[in-house]
């Protein structure tokens, strides 16, 4: 790991101009994620989390402030980013394998066709989708589609993996399965991750850093570091330590929603 953070967001503010007037969404938000780190961002609904991911991906420019990836300022989209959303957006006319290979049709790659396919198959196996390469997305369950979408986000070996509530639409069991899959993938693929989520348990299970955003316009309200213990199992969510962390985060969310006054909680 290097000392410069891989993702750095510096004093970013952004206002949308809508028909009903200006809508400030981000307000002086700063955040940084170390190389190889896993940062989860939680915050009230509609506070600007997806907007934040679009800024990091270079799909939008902030009004003020800057976003840096690997020491370079982000001014436009770059091939070193992989994205997955709540909606898996697989292309229904392509097989799962060809869906996973899609980014390699855009991003320049040194891999031969054969190597590309081998990598795609390797990733599909890693997420438990071996044997489904030639199936169409409509033949897969929601959880399986999300797994395929994850493979697509990783196929071009991105430095940064941006996940915008990727497990949000799944049932609780499938979601927990996918959390464990994420840990397995993380152990093999060297990416730095920014995860948007509504699920506090998901945040502390997957991330080594949890950022709570305030209500709109969002700013970084609270940062919690979760000691990284490598691949975890779900039991880790039922320890007293986890219960404390969840209580703190829940309180912070309520503050962000304006339902509780800010006061200092017992230190972590």
């Amino acid at each position, binding site marked *: 790991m290097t000392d410069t953070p891989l993702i750095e967001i510096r004093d970013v503010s952004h206002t949308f101009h809508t028909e009903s007037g200006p809508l400030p969404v981000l307000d002086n938000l700063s955040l940084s994620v170390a190389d190889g780190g896993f940062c989860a961002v939680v915050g009230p609904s509609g506070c600007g989390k997806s907007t934040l991911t679009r800024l990091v991906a270079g799909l939008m420019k902030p009004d003020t402030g800057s976003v840096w990836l690997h020491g370079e300022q982000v001014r*436009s989209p770059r091939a070193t980013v992989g994205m997955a959303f709540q909606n898996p957006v697989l*292309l229904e*006319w392509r097989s799962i394998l060809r869906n996973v290979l899609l980014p390699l049709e855009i991003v320049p790659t040194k891999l031969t066709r054969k190597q590309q396919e081998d990598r795609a198959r390797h990733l599909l196996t890693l997420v438990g989708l071996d044997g489904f390469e030639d199936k169409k997305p409509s033949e897969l369950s929601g959880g399986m589609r999300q797994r395929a979408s994850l493979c697509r986000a990783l196929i071009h070996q991105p430095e940064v993996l941006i996940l915008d509530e990727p497990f949000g639409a799944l049932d609780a069991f499938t979601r927990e399965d996918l959390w464990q899959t994420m840990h397995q993938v993380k152990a093999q693929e060297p990416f730095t991750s920014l995860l948007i989520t509504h699920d506090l348990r998901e945040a502390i299970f997957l991330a080594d850093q949890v950022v709570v955003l305030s209500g709109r316009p969002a700013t970084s309200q609270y940062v919690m570091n979760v000691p990284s213990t490598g691949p975890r199992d779900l039991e880790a969510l039922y320890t007293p330590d986890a219960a404390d962390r969840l209580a703190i985060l829940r309180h912070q969310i309520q503050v962000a929603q304006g339902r509780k006054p800010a006061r200092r909680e017992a230190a972590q």
Partner: protein
Amino acid sequence: MSLQKIGVPLAAIVIFLILWELLVWANGWPNYKMASPSDLGPAFTRYWELFFIYGWQTLWRTVAGLLLAIIFGTGLGMTMGFSRTLRDGLYPLLVGFNAIPKATVVPIIALMFVGAHDFNTVLIAFMISFFPIAVSVSIGLSTLEPEYRDILRSLGASNLTIFWKIALPKTLPEFFGALKIAVTLAFIGTNLMEIVSPHGRGLGALFDSGKTNSDYPLMFAVLIALAVLGIILYYIVVVLEKIFAGWAERSPS
């Protein structure tokens, strides 16, 4: 399976013809009131050469008009699908144009380019059929979920790449839905022009000459021939749809 697919429609046609024959027979209608299926055979055999030549003329002009409508309609749909401003500007114009009953445009075009039969006919077939194509393509493009775009845009893909890899294939099911309507409309346009323009060609003109000569079996035979052509055209589109947008069809399981 194939019995169901071919046998049942065939049986339906036979039953229809029998009922028609019975209806004419039971009412004792003479030829000039309503021809019966048994009159059609002689009409076809007498004029089969004309049917062949005129049928071909109707067919190629319809298809030519339709191809123009596809090119123009897709282009227009793309402009409207990608640019909000152009969509807001063009939409009312387009709706207004579509609202004009084409039956009123036919005589105008026929007079404007009098004698230019092929041009007239192709033009009307085109004018009447591009609208649904343009609308479906523009709606398909403008309702594309932003995540589809972002998946490729976040990798630095150009708008053209996004169009080819995602927007276009994703719009194909709607496009073919519109094409099925457009093919019928183009066919109507062709026939309107063939009937209206003096000394016209195609099955419409044959129909018109049947009318002037009070040859009612011929008129009905033309109607049947038109129906057959219409069915052929429609099913060609269906086959193309199966090939290019078959993925959109959920297999019943």
